[in-house]
């Protein structure tokens, strides 16, 4: 008889628990605030940077082949379309770097987890400051006379 009881418990534990929908959603379901969005952005920017890095190592390797081969490829980086691509790259790297520092603070700073939400908005603020400094300069380089 005890065997049968234990067996029943194992079977029922496999079945998905029935969750009744709450009357009000506030504070009951996970709705993804700063913590989730920073995680999502960290993943997306990380993947984007990774695939650029793979290409960037290959294009830089052309310096070993010949000056002509390297110049032919690097000149495509100076076109307006690629210039916008470089802007997007810096946008991605800027967030990934600043949010990475936030992750380190969450992990190693005694009150890091407590202030993770505030630190997310500090990351966003510093990110904007960084881009205000970079984007006009980059646009001057790629769209301006040179």
């Amino acid at each position, binding site marked *: 008889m*005890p*065997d049968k009881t*234990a*067996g029943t*418990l*194992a079977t029922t*534990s*496999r079945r998905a628990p029935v969750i009744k929908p709450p009357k009000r959603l506030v504070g009951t379901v996970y709705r993804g605030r700063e913590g989730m969005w920073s995680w999502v952005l960290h*993943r997306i920017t*990380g*993947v984007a*940077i*990774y695939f650029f*890095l*793979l290409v960037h*190592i*290959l294009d*830089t*390797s052309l*310096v*070993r082949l*010949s*000056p*002509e081969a*390297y*110049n032919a490829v*690097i*000149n495509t*980086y*100076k076109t307006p379309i690629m*210039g916008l691509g*470089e802007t997007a790259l*810096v946008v991605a*790297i800027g967030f990934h*770097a600043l949010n*990475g*520092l936030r*992750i*380190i603070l969450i*992990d*190693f700073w005694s009150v890091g987890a407590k202030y993770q939400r505030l630190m997310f908005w500090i990351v966003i603020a510093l990110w904007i400051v960084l881009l205000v400094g*970079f984007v006009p*300069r*980059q646009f*001057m*380089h*790629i769209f301006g006379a*040179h």
Partner: protein
Amino acid sequence: MTTIEAPRSPKPARTRRRGINGEKWGWIYMRASGLVLVILIFGHLFVNLVSGKGVNAIDFAFVAGKLADPFWVVWDTLLLWLALIHGSNGIRTLINDYTRTPLTRRILLIAVATATAVLLILGTLVIYTFDPCPAGAAANLVPSFCQGR
């Protein structure tokens, strides 16, 4: 006596193994390399995209001028190894999270490991076998310091 498994876990939790804890060191690596990469990458971006004529200044002579300086050789070597391993370990995390079958996981992990190994070897060879003044190259394409040679 029937054992009661933890709900929804496909495999029983792996018991603690002896030896090096790879996941722990991977976790530490992401944070340690990340900290150094913030400096290395922002420095790299400033010199190559922001200062002077920005991206327009980059050509063979520009790169050759940098790689003739041991400072940039060390900088670029660190950048190559730290960034590529950091990125590959990040992609490994995504593969572990999102693959649905052990086979696709295995194939993708092997692909990432192969790409990482090939690019690390290629990049390192390029940095250390590079000649800023290749024989027979047009004088207007190489750095000015090649003239005296």
